[in-house]
């Protein structure tokens, strides 16, 4: 269980988190299976989403099913699929909250970025356990650009 994230996408996620601060940012991770690791994923693109939570964007985010369908279509167009989602935690550690757990899907990688005082900090990836009781952290490998 691991997730590979190209350096360019890491930079894009960090920039998104800084831009959205003090609000939460969110987006989808498009990718494919990583053959070098059992149940591993290789992310190829990070797709920013507009946070649809108008009531409390500072500590909540929502990507509606309609937007997920649009993102899935975009992933298919690129020959990829949605392998996870990212979101930021403004002024909170990069670990899933209880609210994250209650609303989580299994299998997806949940990449969380800590943004402290507008500056990006830790970036970690998590997966929900089968019994929905907790998140397990998975290794997040930042990779250099894919050879053409």
């Amino acid at each position, binding site marked *: 269980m691991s997730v590979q994230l190209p350096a360019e996408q890491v930079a894009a996620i960090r920039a998104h988190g800084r831009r959205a601060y003090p609000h*939460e940012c*969110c987006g*989808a991770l498009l990718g494919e299976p990583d053959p070098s690791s059992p149940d591993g994923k290789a992310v190829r693109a990070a797709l920013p989403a507009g946070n649809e*939570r108008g009531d*409390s964007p500072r*500590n*909540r*985010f*929502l*990507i*509606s*099913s*309609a937007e*997920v*369908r649009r993102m899935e279509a975009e992933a298919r167009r690129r020959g990829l*699929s*949605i*392998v996870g*989602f990212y*979101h930021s*935690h*403004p*002024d*909170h*550690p990069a*670990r*899933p*909250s*209880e*609210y*994250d*757990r209650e*609303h*989580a*899907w*299994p*299998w*997806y990688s*949940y990449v969380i970025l800590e943004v*402290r*005082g*507008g*500056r990006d*900090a830790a970036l970690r990836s998590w997966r929900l356990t*089968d*019994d*929905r*009781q*907790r998140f397990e952290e998975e290794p997040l490998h930042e990779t250099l650009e894919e050879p053409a």
Partner: protein
Amino acid sequence: MTTRIHVPTPLRAYAGGQGTVEVEAASVGEALRALAVRYEGLRSHLFGENGELRNFVNVYVRDEDIRSLQGEETPLADGAEISIVPSIAGGVASPPAERTGDALVAAGRAQELELSNEEVLRYSRHLIMPEVGMAGQRRLKAGRVLMIGAGGLGSPLGLYLAAAGVGTLGIVDFDVVDETNLQRQLLHGTADVGRPKLDSARDRLRDVNPHLHVESYETRLSSENALEIARDYDVVVDGTDNFPTRYLVNDTCVLLGKPNVYGSIFRFEGQNSVFWAERGPCYRCLYAEPPPPGLVPSCAEGGVLGVLPGIVGAIQALETIKLLLGAGEPLIGRLVLFDALALRFRELRLRKDPACPICGEAPTIRGLIDYDEFCGIPQARMEEERQAAVPQITPRELRARLDRGDRLAIVDVREPHEWEIGNLAPLGARLIPLGQLAERMSELDTAAEIVLHCRSGARSAKALHQLRQAGFRKLWNLQGGILAWSDEVDPSLPKY
């Protein structure tokens, strides 16, 4: 009527790896329930505990969200296709109104635990209160508390948490029980003197409650190990009495997002608060910088009334249990000051400091630092060493010189109440407390050979410097003070 259900990627592992499953159903609700019957592992992801469709599970019939049709009642024609589509929600921590217990102890983790009949009986006084009840007791059992220090504060804390049914208690301590602990550290008994405090504490706590799981760390909490040790606990309770560890515990808790149940004691005064940066101020919001070393004495130097840690530590236990239960009003953003002599509690409001270096708006501390350095300990140690660089005489040498008939003036620079415990008056010693030395120097003969002593040798070294600056030349410091005298020369003299 056959319906094809499109299963989204995250759920395929629970549906035999298939992207499409065919079921017989007349409505959307029937179709989803038939799916959950066939693939039991899917159920908890689709349905909540009361059988309702989870709010982040969206179902489309062709391109229509069933919420805009007839919901789960939406009828299905033969050959209909439905798609399960995720929506993705999340966010930091919890809204302030949320009960703290839910955030601290995953409700699921607590629900999994069963209480045996023996436990139900043991905790019956908790269970008959609706504020605790079975749900709360299970939460305590699922709770993981880390206590730093198994001493004066750790004693009532550990005993009450164990008795209350907290499931797991981590203890960090590397000290050994000695006689001076027994006046207040009720975890340890006379028979435990010389044993590691961890061993003694574990035995005592397991005797109080055999259901308790103890995890012990025989180490000094440090910047190298603190994050690793604290990571898996719900609450951290600080029972230490020194500033470097206090800042270390605070910073660790802020970085990990955990509550720090704080207590401190000195002589006749106690303090309590709950520092939890996610919901209120942290210790640094209150004290950004430590006091200069030596300004605030430890219990070993300043003394402490034996009952005081009992009260302050019990308040820490109470606050810990409230946090785990999510009951009542936690001591977040409030500092309680307890004056034992007046028997008075005062309360101060604490504010989160926007300029706080670790939990403020633009934090400068993003990891653990060197806390000894931060608290000025190395500089203080150098100063102590400089002070110690004075002519020393050992107790045996002093005894030998007195026996030879050498004329030596012995000056005790302790306080009168210490003199009462025991003194060297039979050898001609006189009492001049350090604070009075400057004005009473004229009582001493600059030409005489003078031996200065205190309890352990630190104050008398200061006295020696003072006299030297005033022109005294023949000065000796009794090495190790009256404690060493008792060890090496006269065991009948009490140590304290």
